[in-house]
């Protein structure tokens, strides 16, 4: 896949939320030193994938949002890490009130973040690995309509099951989508995207859904939903990729709704609901925002006192720049009158809305929240939010053919220059399966090692006779002689004693595993107390960004 096609700037800005990573706590126990976004996925810091993705889709204005405590290591990494320095450097903000447990929607309300948002924006998690061309996604969003200043939103969902890197017990989200009417479906160059766009009408994590099912004794569907949308698809094995393309006005929605905690569950969830549930858009003060906007536009007034003078002027600028792409599209004719004609089914003459159904919410009021639901399992999209996925994703990426092998054009955007770095030294009499392994700079593999499906970071040392299968060895780790590791993640600078046998284990950074240990499904951590928290599934992760 070509990955360096020059893309014109989109006028969008991206916010990448660099959170603490609760569910990866084996490796993020000390976010002050080593935040989640720096954990390597296939020998690159996680953050690289999100930054690279934004770069490829042509977003130049990228802001990282991080708690103040993690600011120092993050900035250091941005300056020093060879992978990160190769990308245009993003700006970093660390709002004073941002804590490790702040919800994503709460984050949007923080004054620093509010003033930072100056146009339509893209909200990304730092743990995203996405191969879907972002520019197509943006293109789909741009032509999907919505009047000026009333743009739609777009979120993305991917299938969790039946993939190569699927793991057991993965967290999923529940979503309900309705198909777009023929006239609403945008024409996009990327054909797969077009068929996968639909209107989001419900969204919540599976954990919330299960709770609801228990309380309500069944799944209750409001009649107004089926009245508004004749076809509703319920999906339970998909995962919210936490990629949100949000229009500028959402900034105000986030600010005005103090009850929102997370973007995924609350902001997007409520927005999706208000599309069909009557009166909800009033409750969410969305109508208020639109009225204000139009007033402000006509009078040229300021948005509000909270806005700084600076932000305002830039604000006005970006609004002026906004172009109605929809009307410029030649393949799409969306004036309202055509909609009625096209949505009329195949049966002859005009059909009047029967009296009993006129109670429907007027559609025009609220721009819909769109959902891109990935069909099938390619291209690759994943959120790396648990150790198991970290391992499976890394291994999957390791299988990509390197640039060295197939050339720059044919290789994937995530391909490494070569599978085994030039500076790595690998002894003669050992086996390293090149098609599914990665070995980074300055690592040593001694004689008689057998290394299969394994990723070895920089400056590692694998002593002689070790057998590594499906392992992830992070930077600077040392694996002792005749160790047998299977499905194990070894943290940075940790040391595995000789003749140790580990299966499906996690070894924390800097930990020393004594010689001849034999363990299965264990976590080697310094603070054993944290272990309990490990059971908290990824739903926490949704709220604590």
């Amino acid at each position, binding site marked *: 896949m070509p990955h360096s096609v020059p893309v014109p700037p989109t006028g969008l800005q991206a916010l990448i939320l660099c959170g603490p990573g609760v569910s990866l706590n084996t490796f993020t126990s000390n976010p002050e030193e080593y935040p989640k976004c720096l954990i390597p996925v296939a020998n690159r810091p996680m953050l690289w994938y999100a930054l690279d993705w934004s770069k490829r889709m042509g977003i130049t204005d990228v802001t990282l949002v991080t708690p103040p405590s993690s600011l120092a290591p993050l900035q250091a990494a941005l300056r020093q890490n060879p992978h990160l320095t190769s990308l245009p450097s993003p700006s970093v903000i660390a709002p004073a009130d941002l804590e490790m447990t702040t919800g994503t929607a709460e984050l949007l309300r923080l004054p620093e973040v509010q003033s930072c948002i100056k146009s339509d924006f893209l909200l990304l998690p730092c743990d995203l690995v996405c191969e879907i061309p972002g520019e197509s996604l943006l293109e789909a969003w741009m032509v999907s309509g919505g009047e000026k200043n009333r743009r739609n939103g777009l979120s993305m969902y991917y299938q969790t099951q039946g993939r190569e890197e699927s793991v057991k017990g993965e967290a999923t989200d529940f979503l309900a989508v309705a198909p777009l009417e023929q006239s609403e479906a945008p024409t996009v160059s990327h054909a797969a995207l077009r068929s996968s766009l639909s209107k989001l009408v419900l969204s919540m994590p599976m954990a919330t859904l299960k709770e609801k099912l228990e309380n309500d004794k069944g799944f209750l569907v409001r009649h107004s939903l089926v009245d508004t949308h004749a076809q509703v698809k319920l999906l339970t094995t998909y995962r919210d990729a936490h990629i949100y393309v949000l229009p500028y006005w959402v900034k105000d929605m986030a600010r005005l709704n103090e009850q929102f905690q997370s973007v995924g569950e609350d902001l997007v969830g409520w927005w999706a609901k208000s599309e069909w549930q009557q009166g909800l858009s009033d409750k969410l003060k969305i109508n208020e925002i639109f009225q204000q906007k139009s007033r402000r536009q006509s009078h040229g007034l300021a948005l509000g006192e909270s806005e700084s003078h600076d932000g305002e002027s830039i604000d006005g600028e970006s609004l002026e720049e906004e172009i109605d792409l929809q009307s410029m599209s030649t393949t799409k004719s969306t004036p309202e009158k055509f909609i009625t004609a096209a949505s009329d089914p195949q049966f002859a003459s005009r059909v009047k809305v029967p*009296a009993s159904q006129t109670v429907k919410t007027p559609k025009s009021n609220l721009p819909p929240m769109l959902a891109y639901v990935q069909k099938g399992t390619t291209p690759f999209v994943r959120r790396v939010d648990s150790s198991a996925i970290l391992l499976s994703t890394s291994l999957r990426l390791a299988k990509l053919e390197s640039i060295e092998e197939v050339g720059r054009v044919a290789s994937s955007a995530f391909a490494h220059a070569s599978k085994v770095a030039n500076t790595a030294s690998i002894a003669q009499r050992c086996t390293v399966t090149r098609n599914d392994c990665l070995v980074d700079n300055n690592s040593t593999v001694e004689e008689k090692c057998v290394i299969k499906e394994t990723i070895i970071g920089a400056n590692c040392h694998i002593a002689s006779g070790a057998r590594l299968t499906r392992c992830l060895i992070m930077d600077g780790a040392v694996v002792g002689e005749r160790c047998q590791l299977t499905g194990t993640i070894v943290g940075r600078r940790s040391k595995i004693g000789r003749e140790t046998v580990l299966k499906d284990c996690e070894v924390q950074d800097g930990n020393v595993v004594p010689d001849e240990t034999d363990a299965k499904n264990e976590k080697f951590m310094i603070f054993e107390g944290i272990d309990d928290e490990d059971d908290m599934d990824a739903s926490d992760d949704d709220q604590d960004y």
Partner: protein
Amino acid sequence: MAPKQKAGQKPKPNSAEEVEETFQAVVLADTFETRFEPFTRDKPRCLLPLANTPLIEYTLEFLANAGVEEVFLYGGAHSDQLEKYINASKWRALSSPFKQLTFLKSTSTSVGDVMRDLDGKHLITGDFIVVSGDVISNLPIEGALAQHRARRALDKNAIMTMVLREAGLQHRTKSTSVSPIFVIDPTKDRCLHYEEIDRHPDDEQSSRLNIDAEIILKHPELDIRQDLIDCSIDICTPDVLSLWSDSFDYQSPRKHYLFGVLKDYELNGKTLHTYIIKDHYAARVRNLKAYDAVSKDILSRWTYPLCPDTNLLPGHTYTLRKGSMYQETGVTLARSCVIGRRTVIGKGTSIGDRAEVHNSVLGRNCKIGRNVKLDGAYIWDDVVIGDNSDVRGAIIADGVVLGKHCTIASGALISYGVKIADNIWVESGKRITKTRNDGSVGKNDPAVVGEGGEGYEFIHGEEEEDDEDDVSVASSGLVYRMPGLSLSSASISTLSSEVSNTSWARSERSSFSADEDSDNFHHDASVSLFDSLREGVAADVVQLELVTLRMSANASDNQVRRAIVTSFMKHIQQLMEGGKGAGPAVLSVFTAYKEVVERTLFDRNKEQKKDQVDLLLALQNDLIHRNKGETVLLFTAKSLYELELIEEEAYDQWWNDERSSSTEEMRAVRSQTQQFVDWLAEAEEESSEEESEEESDDE
């Protein structure tokens, strides 16, 4: 003649020769609804003309296209007329595409009864189609059938495939008062949940659908569809019928059967599937609004080849002219009359000077006077309309005579043979008829039809229609009145059965709502009892559970007994299928759960053993449909006696109760028990003799 041949064609034990089976269809000519009143007082609904062709013709044509070889036609009301019609029709001729066309009469009052009757007759040998007698469709069924058979080959439990037509959110043939909601697993085309939304404005039912948590959690992808037109074309296997028989309280094919069978998936393990079509036409003339809509579709040729110019009936000579005008030969048009688009005019009809006809269907031999304006009117045969009259969006049946200067407002229905005097204004939604419910001619009402007119206003319930279906009783007189409805010619609701619909819906609900709790109770209780029996839970636990359920649903003793009977018999049957003899099976179950049964009988010390009789009746009723029901009844009677649950007097009272011998089936099922009752009677006599002897001794 037909039934005799039938008798020879007993269901063979199906071996490898399944390929040979004939393709059968069941047509429900009567859907046991009264939405076409007052016309259905004179004629069966399926003979009402739609674009001058009786409804049943369209349905039979559809079946012929589908390659059906044997048709069973179930008549309801006026079945003699229908039979006569069928016997004279081309379907009976040598050239008929059907090898066999059997007319079945029944006294049924619901679709459920028909299906159970059909099951009892053992006529069905393989997969068959069920359609109602008002389906208009040009769909070739092969696709659905192939899918059904393929699925069936893989999984024996896939018993039914419903053909559904996809439409938009709004569609003119869609019913607007009750929207069916299907929850479908699109990967398997399996229907998982069915619910109807009742759109009545004063509705107090919850505004939410309730889908089982299980369904949500077990299926990664689900579609909630509200855009499907249910044209009630079902491809069924014989198992469908036995499920109807298992639940004698199922009445309607969707609301009860579909809903119930899906709910009971855990119990019966049967799956129901859907086949969704996106092109071709399929609709049901389910009410007057649909009548209007489908008429329009036919005139605009959506139903091709089922159009007037196809001349489905022998003797029809329609030709198509520009602007969707269909005319037969022999039409007399005055020079100055205007015939607009979308009109059908039958043979022998004459239209007077300066008359204007738009969007209308005129039957044969009508006389339309001068200066008459017709718009959206459905005028059947032999109608006379006087000069200067105006008819908009109304249905005028055969033989109506309309005076001069009359105005018939939209939504009015004028039934057979009504005469309306000059200068009468029939307000919208009024229904005028001559025939009373019992077929006699009613008293004329000059206030409605004018001096010298014939007919009176038809109001539902006016004649103490005591035991017609509950549905009709509750339909109010307001039915076709529709204040405040837009009446533009483009509107679908010119006939405004919108209102009729809703009121019908309300009536249905009111008649069912009382039973709703009890239905649920019956269902819940029998399922939970059955489960407990199967797992062998102790009697006191079962009793406790039953009491809880009963309290929460406020169920009557009768319902409790019914639930017990259903679950016990089901369990006994299962035991018997597992190889146990009827006697031991019955005895073991009743011995183990004696207490449960005992707690439902409160008439031990009374003269009239009402409760015990009720239990026996419920048993009898349940066993009609079960395998070896007669034997089980005998053994049950015996066991109940031995366990002293039921006393001799009760048996006596039961045997003499007319309910226990009301139908053929009831009599059949109790036949074997005769010997036991006889034996009891003798024993009783002896004992009473002894008693009286003792008494006399005392004296």
